[in-house]
């Protein structure tokens, strides 16, 4: 018997920018009519979400509501809900959670609760009879690892595939109203008040202006922020720029940072390492300012300006201000 391919949607999770991405991935993987979606939501959000899941290709939709879910929901509560829902279900399945910190943490923890096999952040999964062949990046995106498992229960995270999803015409919708108690002693995060100068969220921006080690100090980043403001953009950074304290942890883009999918990514003073590029959606256009003609960033950019940023940014800001 073929295993179920089930995507999870965590509605109302503020850290997710593409909550339905895993549904589109499940629909592509499973082929038409087979992908299922489990939607976890507060009751008021549920109906619209079911329609959206069908547009993303889910043929069977389970709407799980829990009026006890707080706003925003606690990750520990997501975990309890999913574990409660799936623990008794002995059927073979591949569960897909959305990419990003929350989906990845849940996926990993859930595997232990469900006695499942974690496959990690997969680029592609293929069914080979009862077995799954999972393709994953390794060694900082420089290598590809192909894993094989026959385990009946597997859990992975996947992002939205490039091809648009085929909507499901006539989805079967089931409803489950749960009241899973949220352990009183589970740690609840205290949300700190947002600082007035908090950077604009990088993973939701249409344009990202990003700086790397080549910025050399905070002054260059101040110019990047000025430029970003003029373009309505968010400011991103590479890992060394975050390490240096020129940008905040939330601005780090890459395999170990935010995944961004802007229309334009302007990369300034960064070399274009695979670890960094892994955080930029393949369809995003890249423009680059770099003083080294050999920099790898020019291999992936569509427009490049070969000069030190010190000669470019002040002029660029002045030109944009004038017109």
């Amino acid at each position, binding site marked *: 018997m073929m295993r179920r391919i089930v995507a999870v949607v965590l509605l109302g*999770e503020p850290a997710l920018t593409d909550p339905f991405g895993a549904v589109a991935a499940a629909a592509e993987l499973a082929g038409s009519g087979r992908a299922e979606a489990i939607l976890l939501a507060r009751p008021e959000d549920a109906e619209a979400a079911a329609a959206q899941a069908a547009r993303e290709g889910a043929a069977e939709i389970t709407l799980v509501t829990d009026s006890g879910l707080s706003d925003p929901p606690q990750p520990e509560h997501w975990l309890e809900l999913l574990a409660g829902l799936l623990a008794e279900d002995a059927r073979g399945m591949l569960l897909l959670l959305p990419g990003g910190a929350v989906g990845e943490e849940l996926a990993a923890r859930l595997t232990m609760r469900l006695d499942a096999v974690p496959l990690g952040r997969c680029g592609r999964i293929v069914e080979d009879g009862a077995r799954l062949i999972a393709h994953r990046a390794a060694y*900082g995106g420089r290598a590809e690892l192909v894993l094989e498992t026959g385990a009946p229960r597997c859990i992975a995270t996947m992002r939205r595939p490039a091809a648009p999803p085929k909507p499901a015409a006539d989805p079967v919708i089931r409803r489950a109203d749960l009241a899973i108690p949220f352990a009183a002693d589970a740690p609840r995060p205290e949300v700190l008040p947002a600082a007035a100068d908090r950077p604009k969220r990088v993973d939701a921006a249409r344009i990202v202006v990003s700086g790397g080690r080549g910025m050399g100090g905070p002054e260059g980043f101040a110019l990047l922020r000025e430029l970003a403001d003029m373009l309505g953009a968010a400011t991103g950074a590479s890992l060394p720029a975050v390490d240096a304290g020129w940008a905040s942890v939330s601005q780090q883009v890459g395999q170990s940072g935010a995944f961004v999918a802007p229309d334009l990514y302007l990369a300034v003073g960064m070399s274009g390492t695979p670890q960094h590029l892994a955080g930029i959606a393949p369809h995003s256009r890249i423009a680059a300012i770099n003083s080294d003609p050999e920099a790898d960033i020019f291999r992936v950019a569509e427009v490049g300006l070969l000069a030190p940023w010190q000669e470019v940014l002040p002029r660029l800001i002045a030109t944009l201000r004038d017109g």
Partner: protein
Amino acid sequence: MQVVVLLAGVVDPKWRLDRLGLRPGTELADESGLPRRLSPFDEAALETALKLRDADPAVRVTAVLPGDVGSDALLRGVAAFRPDRAFRFDTSGLAPWDPRAAVRLLGLAVGAACGCPDLVLMGREFGDCDDGVLPAALAEAQGWRFCGLAHAVAIADGRFVAHRIRGPREELLRLPPPALVSITNDRGNRLRHPLMKNVMLAKRGPVEVVTPQAGAIPRAVVARSLAVVPPPQRGAGACRILSGPVDAQVAELAAYLRARRQAAAP
């Protein structure tokens, strides 16, 4: 207070990976000739542990590096930071692909460091083949409290106070021991420099190796292949490098950015 820091090491990311694969007939990655170093997240986890000890001398730091003999140089580098104990947890001949098996081994590694740790620290990703599964799965398997992707940890009133940024929010979690916190890089946790005297001492000193008493660990995942891949193709192909006087190039880039701003406008 027992703090265990699990370190993975990575192949130096600056090194060109020309050939990387599985050793013929095995599932072991052939990394021969490739230098290993701590990953930025290993470094951040180690620095976090050392900072906790700086703040409270009752904290005892044990650094554990799973690996084979090829990791001994790295372990000496770690020993130069003077954790209270540093050892290699011998994983020779074991393929790391099955995360559940890896979690079992890491649990044994922590057990070899101390019976009941108060805090286990790991980088947000554990080595070259993990994308963040192992810290969360290990915590869950052991029944420890978990906080992922913290950039700072302190101790207050017997609890670990972890700071993290998740989506639009900066959060603070107070975890009672035992807890596992995975660490992401930040300016505040850049690894200090070791004293030269301690580097020399660590170079000369013995390396402690602990061999797991694991028995056979069941595995459900096998590696079919491991291969170097070129970076994915992007865009239309060749990059248009702007030319002419700098002012003309800047004007052209400004026009391009204006057009993109217009296209991106809602």
